[in-house]
């Protein structure tokens, strides 16, 4: 099976007064058709910027400086932005974390869905578009869609606003949905409702989903595969259960050990000492080296992704070499 979205050597940099911030620096990723890929990482890991690059939404002066982004065989990072634009919104849609600010406060939600339909896929008639917009509200589980069609975003709760944003994103039946922290601002019971809705819609519409999140628990329960990002790079990628149960990168291990989890309350939380490196002054060495209890001379030069198992790889010199050593490296 060939990938729906293929990212190779992606680099997105932001010039700042302090220097060049390499927010994304050499990301390779494949998103397979029909899967839900989790992209997990902490603030500044580059998980959002990677997919803003895919969507062509990187804000100047930041820009994609290198790499290839192919969607269904078509290059999006090429010199002609028009080809990419035709796909964005129609074949690739996005929902953002904060539905409160992402929606237009002065426009009814119905009109916002109509606007999305009109911009990307103008149907035969206005009545037809309205019917499809109402279908979208129904699809995402908003009660009384005819009444709510005329309401403004502030009249919806946080969970309902996230549903409205999903309706706008899905209005053109995209093949790929990029959901950036779709539930991070929501209470846990509402989060469960929205994530279940997302899973149901994915199954019903045969959609591919990239779920960007900082929450490994959300990944564990909703994603087929996971890519772990750190300081602008993918450091581990593989089937979700395998990555969580047998992490091969010390950062993934550290992330798991520092995550409070109701299924592992008997385990003491183990923080990762130190801080994420400045993205301005990155050396060639492994980016996790200075926080890693297993660092050795080999970590001083650039580290490539290495295969651990089928479909599972990690950016660590020890990956695939001796799995016990990574786990034994838990710092006391």
């Amino acid at each position, binding site marked *: 099976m060939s990938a729906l979205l293929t990212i190779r050597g992606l680099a997105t940099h932001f010039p700042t007064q302090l220097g060049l911030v390499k927010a994304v620096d050499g990301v390779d990723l494949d998103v397979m058709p029909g899967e839900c890929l989790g992209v997990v990482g902490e603030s500044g890991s580059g998980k959002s910027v990677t997919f803003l690059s895919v969507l062509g939404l990187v804000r100047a002066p930041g820009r994609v400086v290198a790499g290839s982004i192919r969607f269904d065989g078509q290059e999006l990072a090429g010199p002609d932005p028009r080809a990419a634009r035709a796909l964005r919104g129609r074949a690739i849609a996005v929902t953002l974390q904060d539905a409160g600010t992402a929606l237009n406060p002065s426009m009814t939600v119905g009109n916002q869905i109509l606007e999305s339909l009109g911009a990307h896929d103008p149907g035969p008639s206005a009545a037809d578009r309205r019917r499809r917009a109402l279908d979208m509200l129904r699809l995402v589980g908003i009660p009384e869609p005819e009444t709510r069609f005329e309401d403004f975003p502030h009249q919806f*709760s946080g969970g309902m606003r996230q549903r409205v944003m999903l309706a706008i994103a899905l209005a053109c039946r995209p093949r790929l949905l990029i959901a950036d922290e779709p539930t991070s601002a929501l*209470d846990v*019971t509402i989060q469960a409702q929205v994530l279940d809705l997302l899973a149901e819609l994915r199954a019903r519409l045969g959609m591919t989903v990239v779920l960007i999140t900082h929450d490994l628990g959300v990944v564990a329960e909703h994603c087929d595969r996971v890519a772990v990002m750190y300081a602008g790079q993918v450091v581990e990628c593989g089937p979700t259960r395998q990555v969580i149960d047998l992490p091969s990168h010390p950062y993934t291990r550290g992330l798991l050990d*520092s995550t409070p989890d109701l299924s*592992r309350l008997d385990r003491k939380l183990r*923080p990762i000492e130190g801080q994420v490196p400045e993205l301005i002054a990155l050396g060639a060495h492994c980016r996790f080296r200075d926080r890693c209890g297993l660092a050795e001379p080999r970590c001083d030069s650039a580290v490539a992704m290495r295969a651990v198992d089928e479909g599972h790889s990690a950016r660590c010199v020890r990956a695939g070499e001796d799995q016990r050593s990574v786990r034994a490296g838990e710092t006391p």
Partner: protein
Amino acid sequence: MTSGASDGPLVEVQGLGKSFAARSGLLARLLRRGGTIRALDGVNLSIRRGETLGLIGESGCGKSTLARVLLRLQEPSAGTIRFDGEDITAADRNRLRQLRRRMQIVFQDPYAALNPRQTVEQIVGLPLRIAQRLGREAARPHVAAMIERVGLKRTHLNRFPHQFSGGQRQRIGIARALVARPDFVICDEAVSALDVSIQAQILGLLQELRRDLGLTYLFISHNLAVVGHVSDRIAVMYLGEVVELAPARAVLAAPRHPYTQSLLAAVPRLAARDAAIRPKLAGEPPSPIAPPPGCRFHPRCAKAVDSCRTTRPTLRDISLDHAVACHLADNP
């Protein structure tokens, strides 16, 4: 460290209420109704000396209002607050100033809670200057010792908040709360804005400080896994009242209130589990302006019977040290 009535609970609240008028102003216009928001409605709670009492609940349940009323930063509308045996519900300004040396709070947002124009020394020294009327010179050794105690350096004393990372700023907030050697500290979403690897560092620090300084914590968080990791006992709030209160293990392993059960089921976990057996909580919490009659949870409760719709359950002991506000708690 504590004085006065030494055996009773350190903090005890009975029938605590806090109402806000919603008759005028923006909120009322948005909600298109007047009335009273009952943020707290008959809260009963005691906090034992030396324990960490976790307080969980979703947005709007009243947990932050409870924190502010406990410290008398906001005036209660009903009920009593006792601190170390003393009724402080009506304590005057002078008495409050003395009491606040012993009761402190760490806020969620380390960016907003620190004055950007003050140095770390000024920020951390403020409680000493107010509560103990110490001059700058007299305060300095205490401030320096506390800064080192929370994992920062003396050289940081002359820096400003913007020169620190989020985790370091939270350490500054903790130093400020602890410098006057309080007995009771409220942590109000104190780690919620931090990435997990840093969050684990701060949680570890808070636990260490509690042990070493003999502190009592009220640990407020929307994150059940975090609360599960740090608490001795857990109180669950829903729509302005405490609905379950028991040792952490009991709440997490054998919750008796249907709301607690749904809340726990909604939390994503790292361990594999069958998604189909998770009970789903439909709907959203009702408005605290017009709470439902009877049990406030009954409109969302799958187990509700007639008495739940008419009679409001009170928080009562159903077994040793396990209190639940549910008519049906005796028959699980």
